[in-house]
């Protein structure tokens, strides 16, 4: 699937909840809980992306021309968001990742979590994901 196709899939997945924000957040929390996103050995200081309050770990690798991300977060809502980002961006060509606009976050009504004034480090994580992808191009 392309990045856009995955974004579309997620939008549809969240559309089911309509105006039910509680449903949406429960789903997000479930996504956060569902899987360990990063190997424990990768949860090192230098892989931490610091938000003021919630911490994110990110690891980027290039595998057969695609960037493979694994990540984690200490707060569960942040972790749910991280899971979505990894699902959308991982396993794609660096060029496509750099171009991705990630509008789905807005569409599914979680835009506030990507506000730069949010204390959760997500914006820094996306910037880091894109910067890593860009580094693989050069």
């Amino acid at each position, binding site marked *: 699937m392309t990045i856009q196709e995955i974004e579309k899939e997620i939008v549809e997945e969240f559309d089911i909840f309509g105006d039910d924000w509680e449903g949406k957040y429960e789903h997000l929390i479930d996504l956060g809980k569902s899987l360990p996103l990063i190997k424990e050995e990768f949860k090192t200081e230098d892989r931490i992306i610091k938000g003021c*309050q919630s911490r994110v770990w990110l690891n980027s690798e290039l595998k057969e021309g695609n960037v493979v991300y694994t990540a984690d977060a200490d707060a569960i809502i942040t972790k749910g968001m991280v899971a979505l980002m990894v699902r959308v961006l991982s396993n794609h060509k660096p060029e496509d990742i750099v171009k991705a606009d990630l509008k789905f976050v807005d569409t599914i009504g979680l835009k506030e979590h990507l506000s730069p004034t949010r204390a959760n480090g997500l914006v820094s994580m996306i910037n880091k994901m894109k910067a890593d992808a860009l580094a693989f191009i050069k």
Partner: protein
Amino acid sequence: MKEQNKIRDQFPILNQKINGYDLVYFDNGATSQKPLSVIESISDYYKNSNSNIHRGVHTLSRKATELFEQARKTVAQHFNVKNDQQVIFTAGTTDSINMVVQGLAKNYLQAGDEIILSTYEHHSNILPWQLWAEENGGKLKVISLLDDQTIDYAAIPALISSKTKLIAITHVSNTLGLITDLEKIKTIAQKNNIPVLVDGAQSAPHMPIDLQKLNVDFFVCSAHKMYGPTGIGLLYLSEKWLKDLATSKPGGGTIKTVSFEKTEYADGALRFEPGTPNISGAIGFAAAIDFVNLVGINAIFDHEHELVQYAQKKMSEIPEVIIYGKSNHKAGVISFNVEGQHPFDVGTLLDKYGIAVRTGHHCTQPLMNCLNVQGTVRISFAIYNTKEEIDIFIEKLVKVIKMLS
């Protein structure tokens, strides 16, 4: 109840919906909301009397100067300060503390000297001392907390040495709400002839403070936490320090005469208020104090105390909730965590229900280390909060806990 509604009517911001829910503003420890009288005192000033102050010969300048100096008197009266020159307007608590540290560093503190602080100080009452210590070979000594997070007063004498030059202590912990027993601190300090600085950022909004009775050397607080505007605060100096604290921040207005060879500084408050002050801020600060006095600071304390008791009782009934600093002797602040959950998640979901709380380290990382947590969720009250709001909070908190677990 009718009284309470009348008070709430003064705060238009409270009438808003967040994500479809009525706003419940429980982040007063960070900053309080402002009554209309404060907001209007500022616009009135700009619409009718704005001018630069001091030295002016024209009518507007005299009007503005009188409003500004009247604000100083209002603050002095409220805190029962003897000489209104002891009231210095600063940009806020942090600015006030920095002025004290920088002044003391010039003619009072020496290499090797020691400052005593408590474990529950706000970063603003740690970092300026720490920077001084690092740069000048000073030392910070830290009063530990007992298991209930109250100050271990018995431990203080052992921290004191001939090098101890100051005790800088918060009056009310912004994270825990615990009230420091300043009488105990003062007894020890006076016995050893050590000056005391009191960080009143979290006490001034919640309880009566009589600076003549309190009789400490320095007292600081911020208007924005006590119904006033941002960018203005109090630095109170004892008569001794009004004379002895060195000038650290000079500028226009702080002088009698200037030449490139020699400058003669002004007496009194002006020496510590360089440049154009926050005039509208001082006027708004005075309006906030008028509001506090209209309601009555004792009534505020009682009301908030009742809210704390009520909320702590209800919260204790939720098994997953851990309350920190669970004493009864506290101002309107409660810090807690939900077992196994990150405070950020709790705060984020409460916000979705319209409840504004603060999460994180609250600028008290040493206290967090001592509690061995990354952060806490903090609710903090003001005069306009109600038991009904606490009921809503409790109901939603239970929901949030369910969602997260």
